[in-house]
């Protein structure tokens, strides 16, 4: 068993004539937290969508957990162990916290009743509290519906959902883009908790401070190509900005210029 959890080779996505993603070679080791940075339209979200099966790639291979995978949809990816927090939160506004955490994988009793099998509210409530505890999320009243929560609380619920279920890889697409300072701090705490638990993470972010605070490695995208792969210790903010804007290109990635 190798240490690599995710590897893409020559991953390419064309939308008609638009080359949104070109020949992306990317590896992620077990327990590693990697940030994906880049300007708007650089291909960050496109890259994430190919891995999570939201879209089908034009070319290239994706290896996950030692096997080549072809996810027909996000559900396949989730079943394989990739949990994603999307930019648009996939939460049901009229349901409460445990309901959302367990949406689509509810704990049930009397399973012979088929679609009318009973919900195990107590079990879900206990696991929800345990899950929130594990991720350090504090939500005062988990029986409140999502519609009555602040943006930060919603984001925390969405992230807690990915963290509650033992996943092999967590992907977050700009999890703090719309959050206030304290809410951002809470989300960052969850990410640190995941790091301590050795769960690998891909973080798409524009926030330089956040990236340098949280991750081990930074991969920069520019115009649909990877243009740099930097260990955090070897770089700084100015350096990364130079790569993002195209002032610099790392050795070995010259074709991205």
């Amino acid at each position: 068993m190798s240490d690599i959890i995710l590897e893409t080779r020559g991953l390419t996505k064309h939308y008609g004539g638009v080359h949104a993603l070109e020949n992306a070679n990317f590896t992620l080791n077990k327990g590693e937290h990697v940030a994906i940075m880049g300007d708007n339209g650089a291909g960050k979200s496109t890259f994430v969508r190919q891995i999570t099966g939201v879209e089908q790639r034009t070319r290239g291979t994706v290896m996950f957990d030692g096997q080549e995978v072809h996810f027909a949809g996000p559900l396949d990816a989730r079943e394989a162990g990739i949990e994603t927090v999307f930019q648009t939160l996939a939460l049901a506004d009229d349901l409460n916290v445990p309901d959302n955490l367990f949406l689509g994988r509810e704990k049930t009793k009397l399973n012979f009743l088929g679609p009318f099998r009973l919900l195990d509210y107590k079990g879900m409530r206990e696991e929800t509290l345990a899950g929130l505890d594990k991720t350090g999320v504090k939500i005062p009243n988990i029986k409140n519906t999502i519609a009555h929560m602040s943006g930060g609380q919603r984001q925390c619920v969405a992230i807690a959902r990915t963290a509650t279920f033992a996943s092999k890889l967590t992907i977050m697409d700009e999890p703090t883009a719309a959050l206030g300072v304290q809410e951002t701090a809470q989300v960052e705490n969850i990410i640190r908790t995941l790091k301590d638990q050795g769960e690998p993470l891909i973080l798409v972010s524009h926030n330089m401070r956040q990236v340098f605070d949280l991750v081990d490695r930074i991969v920069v995208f520019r115009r649909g190509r990877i243009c740099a792969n930097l260990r955090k210790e070897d770089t700084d903010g100015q350096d990364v900005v130079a790569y993002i804007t195209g002032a610099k290109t790392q050795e070995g990635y010259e074709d991205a210029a």
Partner: protein
Amino acid sequence: MSDTSHGTGGLMFDKSKRQWPNELNVLAALILIILIFEALGAYFMGQSLLFDTRDRFDSIFNEARLRIIIIQVAIVGIIALGVTQVIITAGIDLSSGSVLGATAMICMSFAQVGEVNGSPNPKAIFGPAFLDLPVIVPLLVGLGCGIAAGIVNGIFVAFFRIPPFIATLGMMLFARGVAQWWSSGNPVSFPTEAYAVIGQGMNPVIIFLGLAVLFHLIMNYTIYGKHTYAIGSNEAAARMSGINVPRHLVLVYAIAGMLAGLSAVILTSKNLTAQSGMGLSYELDAIAMAVIGGVSLFGGRGSIIGTVIGALIIGVITSGFTFLRLGAFYQEMVLGCIIVGAVALDQWQQKRAAARA
């Protein structure tokens, strides 16, 4: 954006933001409407709507009127239980009244007696082999017709992605056509005695309330109910979470159809005849009950309890207008205003809640 000036990141639990169960608002509306009728009754008629004011009797309530109020809403109420579930998925079912009509004609044809007053049944649809059947046959035929119509609705909505309004509008016209075609517009009459028992006396009310309790439990304590709310709340999220949304929608529409079919059995049993015009505009009454009861047409919110109270509100208004000896047209004008008012109030409350959150 939220107010983060208190607590950590807006995470304080503010008691004023706690949700007030919507059913209590609907119940308050019911009580208010009763009080208005009591006041009008005392002023104009010198009588009470619900309480017994006659000297000869010593009961508290006017039981005859209470019974009428609930009997007249029971059959539409059964339809409304199914429509409530459909609306919670952010759908709509316009077909239930016509499905009732078609089902009434078909199931009654299997419930006919062989002989009426010593001579062969003049209204018999089928030959002698289909007369004097045990009561279970027309009952199953009735439920089956309803389920079939519901499944067709569900398949068009879930798999062909036809808007529920259009899919069920088509079924509404189709089923009404079937009802008229079945016996070329002639009524189907003379059911067996066993069949006639189903709709007798308070039986429709008992069935209505029994089903209301059953579906209240199903909507709140089973995976079916949870997924119904989830789909209505955010269909994309439900799909992403692994819920088989199309299959679930077919099930919801099938249950709504089954309840329309059951209403057909009860109504024909009560009236001892089936006519092709039966159930005309029942679908709108059922939707009105759900909407007055706080079921959101945008999906995700509402409850069976709310719909039952909504049904009672309609029953009280109908009886109240009769009691005040006002024409049915006033009643419809007021009902129209109440429906729009209920939705407007709900919208306003949602907006206020969103502004505070």
